[in-house]
């Protein structure tokens, strides 16, 4: 233990899926109350709150949550960082603890997306009956999404996977579909996943094509859900009960990066370099190597994305993501199990909750509490998210000694 270590004391994710009768505040409240109970603390003990909700719930979510669970007057940071919002909230709370502002912090992410359909970039209405008027940063006279490439997420990430294939070879529609087959197979053991149905390769490839090579089951599932985590300083943890100390999970690394300038990043987001940079910093901070990881939850927003992140997170040698996957390494019984929760394709992707929910998954295994899907003897795990724009969060977690 080092003096500036921070630990996850309590953590919870709600069931992901459809919650038609509950709003974002209800879901965030459920996650928060359960995370506090899991950590054996109360809202009055918490010194800082960081909260995120990206798409359309009532705001400010942090203060609305306080009104449900306790208005103690502590500082609230409402954060927004695309799909990395949850990880950003967690890191904000961790930074406050490391800065010495308080000993206990709370991070919450929540989203309601069930039935949201296709998520695309900012679009504008066509005005073809009027006169063409150049607008926006490109002086466009009509919407450019679909006319100048695509801004839809399935299409953007399809190109990211295809680009990897162009660079290193070995990719195919079937290969990407087999990644999805793995994650859907994993989901059958996760009762909190939105979808827990195993698909055959033929079913995945034969499903509705969204953006080649991503068919519908190869895309992250829009759903409702929330996740919350209570973090504690090492100093405070030492004063707590043996059971709290035993179940606490060490945050061995908490890293957030953005995309540095590279040629082409203005036309196709580069999700590679910022992930590699975050992973490098995280491995160095934690003093662990990729081969030490017992499980990885990475941002498989699309099947095409999972492949490139094997390489970006250095789970394999550069350019070797295809043979790495083909070796079976990333199945739950493989050398580096990836997305044993089912990943975003089946567990679901309630955007702002995702970056805390994947930490919950890793903690669940490190605590030995993952039930049927427990990875045996899990000691170290990594959680990764990407928010387009871009932001990358990487957390490395270690079981209490």
């Amino acid at each position, binding site marked *: 233990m080092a003096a500036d270590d921070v630990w996850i004391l309590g953590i919870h994710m709600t069931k992901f899926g459809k919650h038609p009768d509950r709003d974002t505040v209800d879901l965030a409240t459920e996650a928060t109350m359960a995370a506090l109970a899991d950590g054996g603390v109360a809202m009055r003990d918490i010194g800082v709150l960081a909260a995120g909700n990206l798409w359309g719930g009532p705001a400010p979510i942090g203060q609305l949550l306080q009104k449900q669970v306790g208005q103690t007057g502590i500082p609230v940071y409402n954060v927004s960082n695309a799909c990395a919002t949850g990880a950003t909230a967690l890191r904000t709370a961790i930074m406050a603890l490391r800065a010495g502002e308080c000993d206990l912090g709370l991070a919450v992410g929540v989203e309601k997306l069930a039935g949201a359909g296709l998520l695309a970039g900012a679009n504008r209405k066509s005005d073809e009956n009027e006169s063409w008027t150049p607008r926006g940063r*490109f002086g466009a006279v009509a919407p450019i999404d679909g006319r100048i490439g695509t801004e839809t997420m399935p299409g953007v990430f399809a190109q990211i996977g295809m680009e990897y294939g162009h660079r290193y070879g070995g990719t195919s529609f079937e290969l990407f579909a087999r990644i999805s087959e793995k994650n859907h197979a994993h989901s059958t053991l996760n009762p909190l996943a939105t979808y827990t149905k195993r698909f055959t390769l033929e079913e995945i490839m034969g499903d509705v094509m969204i953006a080649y090579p991503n068919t519908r089951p190869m895309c992250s599932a829009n759903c409702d859900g929330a996740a919350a985590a209570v973090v504690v300083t090492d100093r405070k943890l030492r004063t707590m009960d043996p059971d709290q100390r035993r179940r606490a999970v060490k945050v061995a690394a908490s890293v957030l990066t953005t995309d540095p300038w590279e040629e082409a990043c203005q036309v196709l987001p580069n999700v590679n370099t910022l992930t590699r940079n975050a992973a490098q910093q995280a491995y160095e901070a934690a003093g662990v190597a990729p081969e030490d990881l017992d499980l990885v939850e990475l941002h498989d927003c699309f099947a095409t994305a999972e492949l490139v992140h094997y390489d970006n997170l250095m789970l394999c040698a550069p350019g070797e993501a295809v043979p790495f996957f083909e070796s079976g390494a990333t199945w739950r019984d493989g050398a580096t199990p990836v997305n044993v929760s089912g990943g975003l394709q089946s567990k679901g992707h309630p955007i702002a909750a995702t970056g805390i929910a994947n930490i919950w998954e890793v903690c669940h295994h490190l605590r030995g509490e993952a039930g049927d899907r427990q990875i045996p003897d899990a000691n170290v795990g990594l959680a990764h998210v990407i928010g387009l724009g871009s932001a990358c969060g990487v957390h490395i977690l270690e079981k209490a000694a």
Partner: protein
Amino acid sequence: MSEQIPLVDYLVLDDGDPHLMAHECAGCGARFFDRRNACGGCGGAEFETVRVATEGEVRAFTIVSLAAPGIPVPFVASVVDCDGTSVRANVVNVDPTPEQVRLGMKVRLVTVPVGVDGGGVEAVGFGFEPVDAPSVSEGGR
């Protein structure tokens, strides 16, 4: 000839010689299609306007089957490497199938009609078409 307007301001329609323009950083050569105050790569604040090559190679593509209302599907969205400058564009004048579109395919810029407004002005966009347009009957693999 009716009046025309480019879909975006970085498309130059010059009669018979359509091409794209970019703002190039005088310091490091980074290129941007939109305006920047300082270069994302080096921080330099001097830019010059340069012409982008009209031929290139498809570096990544997808065939979009689900898109915003009003966009005909399926269509091929791509990133084209135009002599070192990456351009986002649709690949046009090709069957939108994985058999007809290939990574590494050589393509060239062409203009594409977008529509005519109430005043009779035609908006013109751009895409890239295969340099050696494979005929459907030949398969083109």
